[in-house]
């Protein structure tokens, strides 16, 4: 029966080419626009560590000594709080993070010095965030403790400096210090660059930078203190009275990420940071001891409104557009089905039930949806190509993956069936007698 309906549908579509083209175009444009934006949304709102994002947490304390009204912890921590919490080793895994741009050159490589984005972190960073290695391996906790002059470099940097060869054991010069490469990462592009996300609520929706590439050089946190000095990127300072040492200064610039494998451990860690803040208050270092907070990774991304405001706006726009295209299709399908009133009247008179007429009309709508889906897919490819040409950090991430490819056709057919519902119902209600009289 379905085959017969399909045949009828194709015949009917062929008969009114212009009207068919209009409907297919309307669906295609609507699907193309909404799938372009949905794909961007899908890519930007994905889980950056799918294997264990629910066990990653971001503890925060408020080290500000000013008795002001501030009742929210800073987005980063001061050196002392971060390192003391880290040293307690109360979590299953824990990583300190601080970033800096440093001058880098590679002895024996004929390239001018460049400014490299570097991340000072601790050994747990790599297993905790599932960072893939191409050559060599991460440094050890012992390297952290001994302030070893070792680094792990990104695949990008390895390609740029060493043409993609195994560079483990080679030396780099970072701001005057010689460091030895112990590992080279495989291509790694978390979306967003979750561990660096901070300050999103001050960004006025301009959060595209959260989707930039990971740093090029990773080094042990303690070695970083020796090499980087006060060139670290500082989030903010609660006072301008700076000492010579960033580590004792009034600034927040270190982040702590912890992995907690069970709910009980999460609760215990919350208690731990609360107790730490109380203890620091007793020592006179903190004023706001109750200002502690620990969000999970995904909560933290939400809190920072990681998805750029423009992308959200465009997604709503695309849906409004799809809706208008649907209204359009409903109107055109109505015209199309009712134009065939005579034919439907004959079918009804020959014994077709309302249900069969309804099904036949829906099959026709579905075929239009399928055609519109093909058009929409092509338009979405064009739209994504345009997005990739935009000067935004996430441009290189944007592509149509298999789920979104299937979703394109799913949405197209679902939309056209929905649009076909009302006209099909109308068509199935045609009274045969009235139509036959006019024949």
């Amino acid at each position: 029966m379905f085959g017969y309906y399909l045949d009828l549908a194709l015949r009917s579509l062929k008969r009114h080419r212009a009207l068919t083209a209009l409907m297919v175009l309307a669906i295609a444009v609507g699907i193309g626009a909404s799938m372009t934006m949905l794909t961007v949304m899908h890519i930007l709102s994905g889980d950056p560590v799918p294997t264990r994002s629910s066990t990653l947490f971001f503890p925060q304390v408020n080290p500000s000594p000013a008795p002001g009204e501030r009742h929210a912890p800073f987005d980063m921590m001061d050196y002392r709080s971060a390192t003391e919490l880290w040293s307690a080793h109360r979590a299953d895994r824990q990583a300190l993070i601080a970033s800096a741009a440093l001058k880098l050159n590679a002895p024996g490589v004929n390239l001018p010095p460049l400014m490299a984005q570097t991340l000072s972190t601790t050994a747990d960073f790599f297993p905790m965030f599932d960072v893939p290695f191409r050559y060599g391996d991460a440094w050890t906790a012992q390297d952290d403790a001994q302030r070893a002059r070792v680094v792990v470099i990104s695949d990008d940097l390895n390609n740029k400096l060493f043409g993609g060869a195994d560079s483990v054991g080679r030396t780099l010069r970072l701001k005057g210090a010689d460091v030895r490469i112990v590992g080279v990462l495989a291509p790694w592009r978390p979306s967003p660059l979750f561990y660096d996300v901070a300050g999103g609520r001050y960004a006025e929706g301009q959060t595209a930078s959260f989707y930039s590439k990971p740093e090029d050089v990773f080094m042990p946190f303690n070695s970083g203190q020796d090499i980087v000095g006060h060139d670290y990127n500082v989030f903010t300072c609660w006072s301008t009275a700076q000492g010579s040492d960033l580590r004792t200064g009034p600034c927040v610039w270190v982040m702590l990420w912890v992995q907690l494998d069970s709910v009980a451990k999460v609760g215990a860690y919350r208690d731990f940071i609360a107790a730490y803040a109380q203890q620091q208050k007793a020592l006179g270092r903190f004023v706001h001891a109750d200002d502690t907070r620990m969000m999970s990774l995904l909560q933290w991304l939400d809190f920072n409104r990681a998805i750029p405001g423009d992308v959200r706006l465009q997604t709503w726009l695309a849906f409004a557009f799809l809706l208008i295209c649907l209204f359009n299709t409903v109107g055109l399908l109505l015209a199309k089905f009712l134009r065939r009133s005579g034919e439907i009247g004959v079918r009804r008179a020959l014994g077709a039930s309302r249900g069969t007429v309804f099904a036949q009309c829906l099959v026709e709508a579905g075929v239009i949806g399928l055609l519109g889906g093909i058009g929409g897919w092509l338009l979405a490819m064009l739209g994504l190509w345009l997005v990739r040409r935009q000067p935004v950090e996430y441009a290189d991430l944007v592509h149509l993956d298999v789920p979104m490819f299937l979703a394109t056709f799913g949405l197209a057919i679902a939309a056209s069936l929905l649009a076909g519902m009302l006209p099909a119902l109308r068509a199935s209600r045609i009274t045969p007698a009235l139509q036959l009289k006019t024949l």
Partner: protein
Amino acid sequence: MQIQPILAALRKYRLATLLIALEIALACAVLCNACFLIVSRLRQTQIDSGIDQRALAVIKLSGFDEAGSIDLNARMLDGLRRIPGMQSVGAINAVPFGQHAGTAGITLDQAGQHFGGVIDFYLGGPGTFEALGLRLVAGRAPQADDFRPLNHFEPDDAPVMVTRTLAEHLWPGADPLGKEFWSDHDHFRVVGVIASLARQDGGEGGPETIQWSVFVPAQPGMYLAGNYLLRADPAQLPRVLRDARAAVVKIAPDAVLDNQASQTLDELRLRYFRADRAMAGILLGVIVALLLVTALGIVGLASFWVTQRSKQIGIRRAIGATRGDILRYFQTENFLIVSFGIALGMLLAYGLNLALMRFYELPRLPLLYLPVGALTLWCLGQLAVLGPARRAAAVPPVVATRSV
């Protein structure tokens, strides 16, 4: 033209009429708000930077040893000044549309009780005030002894120039000259008021704060090094900047030139607003596609109606209606449907604007957009229906006599 019979006919096609009207309503809502978004985005890109943008460029260095900053400044200032066509070179911490370097909260009293807002500090060496081309509206420009050395990121007891907007925000109605403010322990005294000077990296706290900046005269040194403001004749500026970039390799081989930041101010501004222009472009594309789809919908449905009613049209023609009568009939019908859609659409547009105001901190939709949107859709409707209506008018009266 009588409206009564048209309404009676439309009643027969209630569903189709409603659909077209709803489509028009949605289109109207999206059209008004999208136009408003485009205009507000483009208006943002028009802000007055307050400086002689066309004559300015920036050279930014990084990766140099901080201990050698004073020496680096001396070498750079001297070396860059030798470039033919260079009118002035000065050390500055940041420029509008560049990376932000001096953002801090200020208070209006020493105890830090009366918070004034988060503002941007421009720290400039000798000559930069004039090079920027800042327009003084009250008080005085920096003098030679105003340029004091920095012992951290802000100088102490500095005489500063504030923008008119900031002065009005901090001391509404009062004369800002001689007023004081503090940033943590640092004390500043207002000696001049400048017409405008845009913030370094957009307004933290909305577009009304875009002019919240002060100019602080400062001596180049350890905390003011590596970023240089160049001024040259606009016609020569690209060449001067190219020469300057080439010269840096020889003057400061120990530093790395920041290629992204070392640009003319025009180029920096262009890049700064790229996302806004891209968004405006996308919105414009959506509007065009939207109008096209709506027009196609009207054409499709109107053609259907014409075919359906060809017999009735024939009868009307047979009993004396002119071609013009038939044409006007369909035009009036379209006008009525579109008007109904627009009436609904205005309510929708208002609702959509409320949602945008809530989630995107957009201002209220000015009422002017509604009649403009309505006019656009009326025109669109008339244009779309013209084809089918002409076809209807071409139906010969003889049709009436067929198959009766």
